[in-house]
């Protein structure tokens, strides 16, 4: 239903999106970005609530919803 795009090099691994996602869609990633942070990986079950984007201090997440 929902689709997330993570801006890989913008993320600073604060963990807010992982903490606040109501569906546990996001989890800690294993690939490192240019700033030495590990951006989250996106799993299944996104409902496009936008909470992750709401809490991200770096606007590193874009959220889309199937019509």
């Amino acid at each position, binding site marked *: 239903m*929902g*689709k997330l795009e993570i801006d890989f*090099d*913008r993320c*600073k*691994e*604060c*963990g*807010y999106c992982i*903490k*606040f996602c109501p569906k546990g869609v996001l989890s800690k990633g294993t690939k490192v970005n240019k*700033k030495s*942070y590990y951006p989250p990986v996106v799993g299944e079950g996104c409902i*496009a*609530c*936008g*909470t992750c*984007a*709401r*809490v*991200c*201090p*770096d*606007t590193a*997440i*874009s*959220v*889309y*919803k*199937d*019509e």
Partner: protein
Amino acid sequence: MKTIYKRPEVFTDAVTTYCGGCGHGIVGKLIAELIDEMGLQENGIMVWPIGCSCLSDRYYKMDMMMALHGRAPAVATGIKRADPSKFVMVYQGDGDLVSEGMAEIMHAAIRGENFSVIFINNAIYGMTGAQMAPTTLMGQKASTAPTGRMEDNSGYPVKMAEILAQLPGVVYSERVTVNTPSRINACKRALKKAFQLQLSGHPGMSFVEVLSPCPTGWSMSPIKSLEWIDEEMTQVFPLGVMKDVEKGGTEA
């Protein structure tokens, strides 16, 4: 596909220099969203402080003026008095507003200057390396208070939202925070209210104090810093509307 959220348009492509989890990032984003939603780019001028947010000129496609430490309310007074038709936003941290610029914010409020002030209170001086702020909590450690803030030396933390609410020149004063999604939404509502009061031509200053996480300054992880706001900060700095002239008088 429908877009639920994407980066505000007024943002440049720059990645901020804020630490991971920093409250400046969250509030800066809310401001950007409001600039887009309310069309403030057309007529708006931002006045920015010295502090972690001092590099904000990199982040917004807006006319802006960096002020000397503490002087943003005075600079904004000059701008707004010269051209009252402009929308003027003042953004300051705790060193800038409460310490260096205490006279400037108080007197701008006393005069009832018609601009919106966003005060980022993270109870520490971030940019210069975690020194004590006037809003540092009792017993909270800082590089200039290594054994914690103590009364005999540094007095007590300063509550600006309450102090300013007492001045007739202040028409709106609210304290919010950004440590949960719903509180971030409430912060945005407070900022929007402050901006609307200015845009409506209602004379007087609108003031929003934001308790903001500083993981690096507090020596804790970002997640822990969100918890610390509830455990410690809101005990000293209660959230709420301290004054809303549209509702008549003071509201706790």
